[in-house]
């Protein structure tokens, strides 16, 4: 294992984010605050409680998951697309490092960033709503696991994309709608039975449900099912990444 190389690549990637604190900290704080103003205050004043939880608090796990997924994907996609686009990928390809090491560094950096972002959002929300976390350990597990899985997905997108438009395509066309429809701002119990069934095909429902369970001790779907969905998705992404490196797909001519 070329630990030094992993550390170097990871640090280099992290440095890129830390150079732009506005983008990485200020903007998520502002957008989270806006959600609280709009959903928490305006709508929350009518809904008040869902399953015994104050509506403002209820949306916090969904908000965290929404940012976690979109940011993991775009961080990781951008992180690998940039060097491909600018040609600096030559350095990683010609270095004595394995594909696994490169993935750990790139995906690890992207996941770290979005975990930090998730924590920033959590802290911001504490300014607006009261919050007790029932299972803090599981909260961390779910956040890290989701960040890592979706960073892998982002990595795959960053390798597949041949243009900036394509880089944006999947996050905007697939992930954002799935997250909004995945119960970020409501419990799927509130839907008519037909749409409840349809929602069960949306993987994001499972992610939000288990994160919400770690906060409030109540879930829309079983925790085992949620974990199974995350792990299955992780396995698929790992498989695709392994294939990419074995074949050099879009990395080597």
């Amino acid at each position, binding site marked *: 294992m070329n630990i030094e190389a992993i550390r170097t690549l990871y640090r280099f990637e992290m440095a890129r984010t830390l150079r732009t604190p506005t983008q990485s900290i200020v903007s998520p704080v502002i957008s989270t605050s806006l959600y609280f103003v709009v959903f928490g205050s305006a709508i929350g004043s009518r809904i008040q409680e869902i399953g015994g939880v104050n509506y403002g608090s209820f949306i916090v796990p969904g908000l965290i998951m929404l940012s976690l997924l979109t940011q993991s994907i775009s961080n990781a996609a951008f992180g690998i697309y940039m060097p491909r686009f600018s040609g600096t990928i030559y*350095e990683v*390809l010609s270095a004595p490092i394995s594909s696994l090491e490169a993935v750990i560094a790139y995906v690890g950096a992207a996941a770290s960033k979005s975990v930090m972002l998730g924590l920033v959002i959590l802290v911001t929300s504490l300014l607006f709503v009261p919050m007790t976390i029932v299972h803090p350990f599981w909260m961390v597990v779910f956040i890290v696991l989701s960040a890592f899985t979706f960073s892998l997905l982002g990595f795959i997108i960053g390798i597949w994309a041949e243009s900036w438009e394509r880089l944006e395509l999947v996050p905007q066309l697939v992930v954002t709608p799935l997250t909004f429809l995945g119960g970020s701002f409501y419990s799927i119990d509130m839907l008519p039975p037909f749409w409840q069934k349809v929602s069960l095909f949306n993987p994001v429902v499972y992610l939000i449900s288990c994160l919400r369970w770690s906060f409030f001790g109540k879930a829309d779907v079983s925790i085992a099912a949620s974990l199974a969905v995350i792990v299955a998705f992780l396995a698929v992404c790992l498989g695709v990444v392994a294939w990419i490196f074995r074949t050099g797909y879009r990395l080597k001519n």
Partner: protein
Amino acid sequence: MVPIISIKNLTKTYASGFQALKGVNLDIRQGEIFALLGPNGAGKTTLIGIVCGIVRPGEGSITVGGHDIIRDYRAARSLIGLVPQELFTSYFETVSANVAMSRGLFGLAPDPARIEKVLKDLSLWDKKDSPVMTLSGGMKRRVLIAKALAHEPKILFLDEPTAGVDVELRRDMWSQVRRLRDEGVTIILTTHYIEEAEEMADRIGIISKGEIILTEDKAELMRKLGRKEMTLHLKDALATVPAPLAGHRLALANGGRELVFTYDSATERDGIAALFGDLAAAGILLKDVHTRQSSLEEIFVGLLKERS
């Protein structure tokens, strides 16, 4: 001696279907400076890319320091430093961050003293805290060289290191490269400047259309490649080459108004002085003189014609 790089029957066909390498065989000797020459599109960058792990090889095999580049890629790549033809660097990071990163990627512990020496050798020390994007093209090229040297390679690939570099700096680079060779680094460079190959290389290889058409010691090749032509525009036309000048390699041209002298730039420089002496003695007056050296491209065409 066992070659430090050994390339056997290497082919490469790009996804477009274009065959860029057609069975290349090439051995690089330890400690030499090897110049790889060839016209645009000959396959130089492709060949280097395959050895370094950037381009997927087709058929054939390559060993670097005895290590197969696929099976034993870690050991093989650890030996190699690469300065690519294109100016690929992370524009927003500083020069020293860029250079330190290359060292880390090769698994070596940080060594500020080494980085300092490399940057100073390349006159980049005062730019160490500048983002790469604020540097000129020639400086960016040097950053790429510094990156390649940061991990103390035993083999250095320089893909057109002096393209777009001014004359003074080019001389600087030449002496740098020689210094590296003296430290025991094997160097493979590509260039389109014949005088660069002449100045630097121990051995020269010529590649054309994906085939190595010859490899030869420099001295031998320069004799073949270094042919020059000097045209003497005469004041008065001549019918034949006058007898006192018969000893020089002269031919009449343009209806007797020009004398064309062909000579070998590497070995026959003295011949020019003798010729002018003889011209004056024979009372032949000149209007103008100009010389031209056959370009590499012409030489390649010539060599290829010779072969077919």
